[in-house]
Each structure stands twice: as C-alpha cells, then as structure tokens.
C-alpha cells in the first residue's frame, strides 16, 4: 500500500531584515491510500506552504519526504515519477486553467507527458471527463474555461490532476472559491474518486465542518505547527488544544438557531456566557500580533489558559488514543488545570 511520509518538514522564507520566517515548523504526517487527511488552520498558518512543499513547488529547509520509503529529492529529473504519483488541485479554478486553451488541451498535456499515445489520447480525455461527471465529454472537451461555471472548472482541474493516474491528491482549498450549493458536489466527487481509485487525499481547508465530514483524520495548524491531530470526530467533538476550541466555537452554528426555535437555549454548544472574557482576551491579544519568541508556545498570547510553563516549547501530548495536542495542559500532572474548559470544549 502506497504511503507518503513527511518527517520534520521545515520551510523558511528569507526576509529582508532579521531571521527567516518559519512558515512550516517541524511538521510530520503520513498520507495513506484510501484515506483523507484534513489540514485546517487560519490564513497564514502554513497550510498551503505544506502543499506546495509536498508538490515540490517549494523547496524545504529541512526534513524529509518519503514515498513508499524512498527519499524524494528536492528537484531534478528524478521528480518526474514522483509528480506522476502526487498531483495537486488548486484553490482558484479561475486562475489554474489557461483561458487561451480548451479543456481538451489541459488534459491532453499531462496524458502525453506521462506516456499516453497520441492515437488514444482523445478517448482517454473523454474517459477522464466522464469520471468527473463532465458530460457529454465529447462536447465538454471543446469548451474553453470562460464557457464553464466555477464548479465545472474545478472538475476540469480535478480531471487534469487525475490524468497521470496519481496515488496522492493534494487539494488546497478546492471548494472555497465555489458557491455553497456547488461545494458539496465537488467534495462528494473527490470522496468518490478517493474510494474508486484508492487515492490518498490531503484536504486543506479552513472549514472545520467539511473537514470533519470528508476526512478520517484532522490536523490543526497554527503558526506553522501542528497543534492538534486525531480522528476527525475526536478533534471536532472533543477539541483539546485551546486554539482548536477557539476555532470550533467560532464556526457558524445554525444548530443554535434551530435549538432556539425549539425553545432550548442551546447552551451545550455555545461558547458564549461565561467565556466572554476569554474571548475578549483572545481577541485583543490576537490584534497585538504577537511575535512568537524563542520556544514559547505559539498560542501563548491568545491563550486563556496560559501559565508559566507555556514559555517552554510544548510537546505533542496524548489526549486520548490517537488524539494528540501540542499543549502543556495535557501533561499528566496538569489535567486539573483545565478549569473552565468544559464550557468551551463540549
């Protein structure tokens, strides 16, 4: 079974002044065939940098990527077979397709590059279009990007990624540019393709709800680090890291309105009430744009539970089986300190 293993990936960007900006800080994870791993976090947390580094569009500063236990080089001809197996779907289907070329052109090139014969290529294009439900394929392949809706364009982008018959698909916010009513169709399509082709899918998003619904595992990223990871239901229903709890409480809750309509006050899922001061503190601190200094926890300035020991770098600690958080709260001696967490975590 194929797997893609990322170990201690570090990506730094040089800055005109001062130390380089560390966008990805010692990140490790494994993508396995037939599974979807979701990577969530706010803008600027490093999600897209990981995708770009994994797609070898961005050089890593340190760390290794192994494909089926073989080290993947940073660049060079040897990457061709890697690229065949690892493909990307980008966020903006309006920018990722060339407006001057037809749909067929977009699909023909990867097919030819990866060894399909010219004689059969049109048939293969039609098969690809059919596999992403762009029908009738013979008609669709003649179209140009401006003749397609956003959802159709994203289907073309997915078909293009599937052209070399990859084992890994890295989808960087594949639906955030699309309309709500279209999003689920694209996500369902990705999910079906994953099952049919036994793909390993990395789903990068800032939307916790779809992350939970379409992935088996979730990693939460904050300022370049994975702060929490685990089975998706564990992470969303029982968020451990204060940042994940903040994310979960900030997401829209139509259920609250439903509960309100039903006469209940929805307290169980609400982050309101007693935690207003926490939120207030988090907000003010967030605006101060704290610079992460030294080894301190990156979330320290916004964290309502911060203590002295948070100035030391927090390790990844086990919250429950297979569920880890990079937070001192989960050191065995510290569990009692989680005061007030009940209201936010549930």
């Amino acid at each position: 079974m194929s797997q893609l293993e990322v170990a201690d990936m570090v990506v730094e960007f040089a800055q005109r002044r001062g130390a380089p900006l560390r966008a990805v800080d010692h990140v490790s994870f494994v993508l396995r065939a037939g599974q979807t791993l979701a990577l969530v976090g706010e803008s600027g947390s490093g999600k897209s940098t990981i995708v770009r580094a994994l797609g070898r569009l961005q050089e890593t500063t340190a760390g290794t990527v192994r494909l089926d236990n073989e080290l993947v080089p940073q660049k060079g001809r040897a990457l061709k077979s890697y690229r065949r197996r690892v493909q990307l779907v980008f966020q903006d289907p309006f920018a990722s397709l060339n407006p001057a070329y037809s749909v067929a052109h977009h699909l023909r090139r990867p097919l030819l590059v990866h060894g399909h014969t010219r004689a059969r290529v049109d048939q293969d294009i039609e098969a690809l279009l059919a596999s992403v439900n762009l029908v009738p394929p013979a008609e669709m392949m003649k179209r140009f990007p401006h003749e397609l809706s956003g959802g159709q364009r994203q289907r073309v982008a997915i078909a293009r990624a599937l052209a070399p018959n990859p084992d890994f698909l890295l989808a960087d916010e594949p639906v955030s540019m699309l309309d709500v009513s279209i999003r689920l169709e694209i996500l369902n399509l990705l999910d079906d393709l994953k099952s049919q082709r036994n793909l390993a899918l990395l789903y990068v998003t800032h939307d916790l709800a779809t992350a939970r619904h379409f992935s088996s595992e979730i990693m939460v990223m904050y300022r370049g680090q994975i702060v929490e990871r685990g089975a998706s239901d564990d992470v969303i229903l029982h968020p451990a890291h204060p940042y994940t709890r903040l994310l979960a409480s900030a997401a829209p809750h139509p259920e609250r309105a439903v509960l309100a309509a039903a006469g209940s006050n929805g307290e169980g899922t609400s982050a309101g009430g007693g935690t207003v001061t926490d939120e207030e503190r988090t907000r003010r601190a967030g605006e101060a744009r704290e610079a992460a200094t030294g080894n301190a926890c990156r979330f320290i300035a916004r964290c309502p539970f911060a203590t002295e020991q948070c100035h030391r770098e927090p390790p990844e600690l086990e919250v429950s089986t297979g569920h880890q958080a990079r937070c001192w709260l989960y050191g065995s001696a510290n569990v009692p300190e989680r005061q007030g967490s009940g209201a936010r975590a549930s």
Partner: protein
Amino acid sequence: MSAAAGGGERTSPARVVHGPPVPVGKERNQSGPSRAGEVVLWAEDVRVDYMGDAPTHAVRGVSFTLRRGEILGVAGESGCGKSTLAYAVTRLLRPPARLVGGTVRYWDTPRGEFVDIMRMTPEQLRRWRWEKVSMVFQSAMNALNPVTSLRRQFGDVLRAHIDGISSDEVEARGRRLLEMVGIDPARIASFPHELSGGMRQRVGIAMALALRPEVVVLDEPTTALDVVVQREILNEVRRLQAELGFSVIFITHDLSLLLEICDRLVVMYGGEVAELGPAARIAGGAAHPYTRGLLRSTPTLFGDRKELAGIPGSPPDLRKPVKGCAFAPRCPHAFDLCLQERPVLAPPVAAGAQEAAMAPELADRAPIGTGAGTAAGTAVGPGPDGRPGTRAEWEAACHLRGAVTGPVAAPAAGAQGGGP
C-alpha cells in the same frame, strides 16, 4: 397596531399598493429601541437590469421591508442578485445597472413619512447616504484609501457631512469611533496596510457608523476573513447594533451564518425572493426547496455525520425570460405547474399537511396567485389575519407552499416521489 403612516406616499404611485406590512408609528422625533419594529426601509417590486445587447434581469421584482433595530439577512449564491439588490436600495447602482421598476422608500423620521429615494435630489441623496444609510463592503482593503491615514479618511467623511467641524473634533470623533470597534485609538495615524484584515473590516464598520446612520448595509463583510476573525466581527456588529439601535441588511452566501445572527431572512434565487421569514423558523424547517437544499449543502459542525448532497445543476441564465419557477430545473419536487407558472410568495402550509401536499390534486390547491403579479407578491391574497394586503411573517415562493417543511436535518428522501 395600524398601518397608518406613510399616507402621503401611498397615494403617489399610479397603481394602488398595499401599505407596508408592519405598522409604522406616527410619532415624530422619537428614536431608539422604543420604536423597534417599525419599517425604516420599504422596497417594493424592485427590478434591476444590467443593460447590454441582451439585458440581464438581475433582480426581478423583489419586495421586502427592513424594520428598525433588526438584522435582516439576504442569502443566495453568486449571481442571485443579492448585492445588486443592496445597491438598488441604497441607490448606488451605476450603469450598466439600471433600476427599471419598483420603488424604494425610506422612513424619514423628522418628517414622519416615507420618502421615495428615487426622487431625492442630488443634495438630498448626498446627505442621505452615510448620514442615514451606510455601507460596509466585502473587501475592506479596497474600501479604504491605501495612501492616506485613517485620520484623514475619518476627516473626509466627517467634513463632508458636518459643516464647519474642527480638526480637533475630527480627531476626537475618529478616536472615539476606533475605540468603539475595539481598536486602539492611537491607530488613527495608521495606514490601511498596517492593519490586519480583521482590523480593516473593523475600521470599515467604524467609518460606516461615523454619522450614526439608521441603516447599515453589510455586503459580505466577513467572506475574506477566517472563522475566528469572522466571529469577532459578527459579535462586534451585534454588540454595536444592540447599543446604537441601527438596522442591518447583512448580505452573504453563508446561510448557516445568517441563520445564527439574523432576525429575519430573505433567501434569493435567480433574482427573486425564494423565501422570506424569521431566521429561527427557517432554521427549524425551511419551506422552499432551494432553502432546504442550501441548508443541506452546509454540513453542521457538531451534528451527526450524514450523507450530504449539494444542489445539482446551475442557476438560471437571467438574460433569458424565466418561465415558471426559476428553481424548477434543479428542484427535486418540481411538477408540471412549476414549469409553467411563476409561484408567488405565500405563507407555507403547516408541516402536518405534508401527505396532502404530495397528492396529485396539489396542483389545484396550491397556487393562490396567478403568477401574473410580481413574483414578490404585491398581489398576494389575504394574509392569515384576513386583512387584505398584509404580508405574512413567513412566506415562500413555491407551488408546494412549504408542504415539505419539517426538520431539515432529514433530507426528504421520500419526497422525490412527489413530482410526477
């Protein structure tokens, strides 16, 4: 409660129109929460075209009212006309967009009557904008001037509307406004690029509130922000709204967000109102199949995992005339009538009548309008209280008349058989 106000205005249109659905007090010079519930903005049968070889009928007969102190959400996908509608009711449309029909009236408190905004003189309009109605745009970066400090931008607004305001006063008010939206007043010397996305949007809100308007239109104010910042902005809007008592028109494609923060909701599809009603009731069980589809398209964070489906198909081409219901080609419940006749807004029937609604004789029972009137139903028949012309609190433009209501969480799987 009587719909007595606005008398002067009501006689002016050529055809007889019913009064605003919600009573408007006659009292003058009264403000604040005591008058909550009055109509401040009354749009009726608004139609907007984008001119061209084939005009796009972007807004096709939309009516709604905005009440004092409420948050009215406008939801729909891109191209449904929600932003165009917002520009129409604030008279911000620019060519090629043109208001081709309908009226928009604003309740002028000092005068105690409705004023037709299309008949305002340029000077009246200049005063009306920002002093009475202001707007917050999606992209705060583009809404703020990148080459001047916040101080000067506050100054621009204040000087344009307050004659002879001193520099000290500008400074003091600018600082107060920043403080009001939770930004350090010292930031008044900052340039927009020195602020984070969330802070810029706060500044946008502060600017919109600079002259204490009665209506604030928020056009996708949080779409470019991530969830945590979005939540902060929403809380800020709600807090300020409770404090200052202005009314909000909140436009976004994110229905789940609207359900949570709005008092009432307008769901638009293909330039028309598909459904209009209290957010809490729509959350409990939307009446229009499109609203239900939208709700099913957004997975809930904490609910059970379930099979999720989007809405197959794509929105109608608004350059062509739309026959029947605009949503019919995508609707799982569509039947013959839906393709022929445009449904008018009408109160949904109770969920209990579901079986009856699925029966074939539905076609005889369902339509209460002929479709000849406007889609938004100025010609709607008697409301639940029997008074002619009174609009119901909750209405949907669907021949099924909401007969598929019920918990949204369970997709109406069996309902598929409802259509022939």
